[in-house]
């Protein structure tokens, strides 16, 4: 079966560069795979093999160490109080909320890829959606920590939820901070359901291939008794479509609501109507950068280069370029409005942002988010592994600084010059931030090791074998029998 024709008869084996556009032909999204079973073996190998790449162990031990440090920093914070952070009177939000917005932002790519690209029938999403969604869930878990621990009296954190209580006290329903609780928890729930629903057929595959009772039962429980029957598939597809439709507005709403935390307040530099779209663009920007950061080493380590091809990475880099430019546009419009509004406080806030005490953070933000991503105009860089890896790291750094600039520079120099101050992070601030990466990486590495990293069933559907043309090739019956569950 080595010569399944693609389009006008270019054999898949010979397509090395699938980033090229040939008019009238669809570029193949899966390379060097001749039958469905190849996909299954390639993906399952990661979860099944006893020999895991050394790099996984090194990374896992390192991440676990960071996670432990996160636990230590949080325990120290609880035992001592928020004074262990570098907060001061005007700057009462700093690293905590910066990290929160950063991680929620990261969590946007997954659902965008899985829901919006699904509804738009972007078939290239199949190679990356599974782990982009996993990344989303882990990022939202990381994000969820920060509002939880920054409240000072952490033992009454349940007050953020409207639960009947003897105090007859309810959260302030007019506050965006409460909307945020709902927005993020809804997003987390729906993303988790979406991720899990999509994974059921693949979990069944792992179950069926599993050797050993524990693995069989473990995967079997989560596969929910999936047998791959026609009715199963019918209901699965329906559920998936509905969840995609449900998630789509969430992609836009979550970061809009996060931006309301700032935009609804009166502080110059926060009180801006452009915030919701600007935050959403920034979130997708940073989310895709994180997907690239994770995809590049993962496909190398686990031998998934034929499934996450250069074309996938190229497409994501294009999205990074687009959203990066949107973010750059938002930065410049903020300045324009600061001038055009005629409000002196607004004008000061923005001049202060660029040239005030935090000029260096602003400089990092603009150079990382606006200037360097422009290199993605060049295809050579878009398709260079090292090029995109480094650029994606730069974007991650830049987007972290964007949140830092917005939050800290606006607070540190507000209306009243007498109350101005400088925020200087303490080791606990920095430790908690780095520790949250430990949590993220630990969860991600566990996911890579034990769950199907790529949506096998969906990838099979975009292979040419899933769409056999019997007029020019006569014997595809065998493949159909292989089925998505082989």
């Amino acid at each position: 079966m080595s010569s399944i024709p693609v389009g006008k008869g270019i054999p898949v084996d010979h397509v090395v560069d699938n980033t090229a556009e040939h008019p009238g032909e669809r570029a193949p999204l899966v390379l060097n795979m001749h039958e469905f079973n190849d996909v299954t073996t390639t993906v399952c190998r990661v979860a099944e093999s006893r020999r895991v790449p050394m790099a996984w162990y090194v990374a896992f031990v390192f991440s676990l160490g960071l996670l432990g440090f996160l636990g230590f920093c949080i325990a120290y914070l609880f035992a001592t109080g928020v004074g262990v952070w570098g907060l001061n009177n005007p700057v009462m939000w700093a690293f905590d909320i910066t990290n929160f917005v950063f991680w929620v932002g990261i969590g946007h790519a997954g659902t965008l890829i899985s829901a919006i690209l699904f509804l738009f029938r972007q078939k290239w999403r199949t190679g990356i959606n599974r782990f982009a969604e996993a990344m989303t869930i882990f990022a939202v878990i990381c994000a969820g920590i920060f509002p939880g621990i920054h409240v000072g009296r952490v033992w009454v954190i349940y007050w953020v939820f409207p639960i009947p209580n003897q105090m007859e006290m309810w959260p302030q329903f007019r506050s965006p901070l409460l909307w945020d609780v709902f927005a993020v928890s809804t997003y987390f729930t729906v993303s988790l359901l979406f991720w899990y629903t999509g994974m059921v057929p693949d979990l069944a595959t792992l179950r069926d291939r599993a050797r050993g009772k524990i693995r069989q039962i473990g995967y079997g429980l989560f596969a929910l008794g999936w047998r791959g029957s026609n009715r199963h598939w019918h209901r699965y597809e329906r559920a998936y479509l509905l969840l995609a439709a449900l998630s789509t507005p969430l992609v836009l709403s979550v970061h809009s609501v996060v931006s309301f935390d700032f935009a609804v307040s009166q502080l110059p530099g926060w009180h801006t109507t452009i915030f919701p779209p600007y935050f959403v663009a920034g979130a997708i920007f940073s989310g895709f950068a994180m997907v690239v950061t994770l995809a590049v080493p993962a496909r190398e380590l686990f031998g998934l280069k034929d499934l996450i091809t250069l074309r996938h990475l190229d497409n994501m880099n294009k999205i990074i370029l687009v959203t990066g430019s949107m973010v750059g546009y938002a930065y410049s419009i903020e300045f324009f409005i600061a001038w055009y509004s005629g409000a002196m406080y607004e004008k000061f806030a923005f001049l202060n942002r660029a040239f005030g005490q935090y000029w260096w953070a602003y400089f990092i933000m603009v150079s990382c988010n606006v200037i360097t991503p422009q290199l993605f105009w060049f295809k050579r860089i878009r398709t260079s592994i090292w090029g995109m890896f480094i650029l994606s790291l730069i974007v991650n750094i830049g987007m972290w600084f964007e949140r830092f600039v917005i939050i800290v520079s606006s607070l540190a120099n507000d209306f009243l010059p007498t109350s101005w101050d400088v925020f200087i992070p303490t080791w606990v601030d920095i430790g908690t931030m780095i520790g949250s990466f430990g949590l993220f990486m630990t969860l991600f590495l566990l996911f890579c090791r034990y769950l199907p990293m790529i949506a096998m069933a969906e990838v099979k559907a975009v292979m040419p074998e899933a769409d056999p043309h019997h007029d020019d090739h006569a014997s595809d019956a065998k493949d159909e029998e292989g089925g998505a569950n082989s």
Partner: protein
Amino acid sequence: MSRFLFPRWSNALLPTIIIVGAIMPLYAVMFVAWGFSPKTLEVGYQPAQPVPYSHALHAGELGIDCRYCHNTVERSSHAAVPPTQTCMNCHFSIRKSSPNLTKVWDSYETGMPIEWVRVNKIGDYAYFSHEAHVNRGVGCVSCHGRVDKMEKVYQAEPLSMGWCLDCHRDPVRNIRPIDKIADLGWNQQAEMTVDQQMALIRQYDIHPSENCSTCHR
């Protein structure tokens, strides 16, 4: 291919899981909201006291005014627990040799106060002033119940924040003429019409605040 599928009996579990999954969060919320409420946990608190002093006898049968012993209540945020000397005003000559008074005599002679156990207590984070309430027509009975019928004092009301707010939002039912403040048996509902109650609210100029900083200063 041997694969793990759910055995047939597990179908019966599904509705159970769904019902439990749907009801448990609701149950947990209700359990915490009502089960852990001071209404459940604190009303009825009746600690043992060092001296078997009976409010039912002194305040009820003998009709001693609350303010005779708790004499700072109109002038201070705190309603004082009386010193031993107050007991001695009467007991110096009445029932001198009662065994129940042994500790009182000890205290009187040594000068060491009797260690009464506090019954009604609100958190340190909540500021409460007896003076502000008593001088505006909130009677003792509204918060402390019928102490004149208690052999041993117990907590009659939850003293929770929600309970405070109930009255701050609608004080009409707890306002009485100043001269009836310590009259525990005087029934405000029976003695006054709603119009009279409203008139009293206006007369005493009562605008209970609901700001956080009213109590949490």
